């Protein structure tokens, strides 16, 4: 009885600790976005002494200045117009990440099938090369990739970022899906061969339909890799028309001239859709990936 209680308390304490580090920042952002800076920094005032205000959200979505900055003599340098890019950058991020994930799947799924099921010369070497390529530090690749995208005339476009994000996701997608293809029973492919299927038909009609949940889960993983990527997004995007949310958030968070309220409101707007998406699909991601690992 005592042991069960101690176990439960331990679990509760562990869960609370995790919640503190995951939910804590979200709660802090929400609070900071609703409370004016003057209250936030005044140790003599309670957080809710002046009530909550939605000024910062109003500014981000409509451009109307927070009330305290409309007063005569207010220094408006702390109001960063970059915050107004947040909603549009979210849309950019979704477009870029979705396209990058789709492109990565289109290119990597057949490759994963080949590595898992077909013997060809140089298979081991190219597979190792592909799988180990993410070990190269991103910073080392910035200049050559920048120059390649520049030469392609895609600098400052979403397409350039999509290409790079897709290429970055391919090793992971190949690795995860090839594990799944390897676990499929060999009899399945032998039967397809006996029925006269070509290699491509076997892939499209037999392997792919069976692997679809894993492919979709891996696609979500690629989506998230792209959504969170910063370095290439920063150097390859040119203006707000192509700039994803990771870059806009960096612009706000790393600029000390942005008011805390505005920064917190932007953080909250940026993370809430992500949190909802992750909460909705994470179960499928994990299930899909586990299926690849334990099937057969």
């Amino acid at each position, binding site marked *: 009885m005592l042991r069960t209680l101690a176990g439960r308390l331990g679990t509760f304490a562990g869960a609370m600790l995790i919640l503190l580090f995951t939910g804590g920042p979200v709660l802090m952002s929400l609070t900071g976005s609703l409370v004016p800076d003057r209250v936030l920094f005044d140790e003599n005032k309670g957080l809710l002494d002046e009530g909550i205000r939605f000024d910062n959200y109003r500014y981000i979505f409509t451009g109307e200045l927070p009330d305290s900055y409309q007063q005569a003599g207010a220094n408006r340098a702390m109001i960063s117009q970059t915050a107004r890019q947040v909603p549009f950058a979210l849309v950019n991020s979704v477009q870029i990440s979705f396209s990058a994930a789709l492109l990565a799947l289109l290119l990597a799924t057949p490759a994963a099938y080949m590595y898992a099921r077909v013997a060809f010369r140089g298979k081991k070497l190219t597979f190792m090369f592909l799988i180990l390529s993410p070990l190269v530090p991103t910073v080392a690749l910035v200049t050559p990739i920048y*120059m390649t995208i520049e030469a392609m005339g895609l600098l400052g476009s979403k397409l350039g970022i999509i290409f790079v994000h897709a290429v970055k996701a391919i090793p992971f997608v190949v690795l995860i899906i090839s594990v799944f293809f390897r676990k499929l029973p060999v009899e399945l492919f032998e039967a397809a061969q006996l029925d006269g299927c070509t290699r491509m038909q076997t892939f499209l009609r037999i392997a792919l339909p069976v692997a679809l949940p894993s492919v979709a889960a891996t696609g979500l993983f690629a989506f998230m890799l792209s959504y969170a990527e910063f370095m290439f997004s920063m150097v390859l995007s040119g203006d707000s028309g192509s700039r994803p949310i990771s870059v806009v958030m960096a612009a706000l968070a790393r600029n000390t001239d942005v008011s805390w309220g505005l920064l917190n409101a932007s953080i909250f707007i940026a993370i809430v859709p992500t949190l909802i998406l992750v909460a909705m699909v994470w179960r499928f991601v994990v299930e899909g990936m586990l299926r690849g690992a334990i099937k057969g």
Partner: protein
Amino acid sequence: MKPRMKAWFGALAIAGTALTAQPALADVKLEFVVWNYSIDTIQDNIKKFEAENPGITVNLTDYTWPDYQDSLLLRFRGGTQTDVVYGGQDWLPAWAAAGYLAPLEDIAPAETLDALKKDIAGFALSDMTYKGKLYGLPYYADTISFLYNKKILEEKGIPVPTTWDEVMAASEKLKADGMERPIVYEYNQELPNFFDAFVAQTYSRGGDLFDADKKAIFDNPENAAYQQLQWLADAFAKGLVQPETHESKIIPAMNTGKHAFTIVYNYVLAAMNTPGEQALAGQFALAPMPGSAQSTLGFTKFYAVTAKTAADAERAEAAWKFVNFMAGKPYKVAERWAAEKGLGFGQMPLFQNKDVIDAWQKWVDVPTLEKQVASARAGTWTEWTVIWSAYFRPLLAKAMVGEASVAETMKAGAERWNMMQARFAK
């Protein structure tokens, strides 16, 4: 006139009209690269420029401030078309030496430049000059200021200090009266501001860290920098200083009423005096930097034209028109930044501009600031200053809090500077 002749004249007239109807410049699309501060305002300024200059369009690209220099270097090295950029006094020697930027003398009419130079504050002109050539016109310029809480000093009957000894005496009096730490100081060895503030204090004593040949001379105990570091170490040792890691933390700290003095860039005063946001807004004022010279350090960010653009006559002409619109007479764009955003400026006539005065007098005494700006000096910017400063700042930080002696710190800093100077000279 015969019909055939009429037709010829008609054709010639049409051709002539078509030729003369061409704009002075063929269509040019300038690539303007900035760090992302107030992009909407920049875009609006660009629209106004385009309306006044048919045939020239401007495409704006912006990067985050911390990544700006690296991103821009990537563009320079990658050959990405880049025409006009935001430059900075600290980057200029390296960028100009590498051949990335062009002197304005190469693309602008000499008489226009001369007229503009006369209006620019001395420190700003120096910040934008490399090897005797002018590389930009000011976008934004500011000085480090000595700020104090008027109300506290009035209540305690303390006159505004005019020397560092008076600052020490006033702080000791305030401490004796119960104010635990009268001075708030931006203490962060990672920040270039940390070194800038120290240089400003040295200038206020009428000294310099370097001689005319740019040799380090601050290891001499008679040097103003040496004396000021000793002063800071004494102030820390007496428990008079509240260190804060960033200027953004100094704003709320001063607004607690628990501190009376600070040394920061002038724009911090604007934030400290923002009514509605700051509890003690209106209580803070700027005093001339204490010391015999009452000088300070200024910095300048500026519009610069790339060497690649300067080499193309058509683009160079368009780029100069753009730079002149953004920073030249009648200083409308600089006035807008100053009045709407509180940004400092290098164009001295703006101190007489009614709109600027109306906007600024709400948070600063404009004549005092004008005097401060007029007497401000530029930093010593060389190809190695940024690297050396990163080495020296941690030493400076240790000496202030008594973890290293002033003599050892200054000796090590001076030796490193002179060694780097010799190395770069080779």
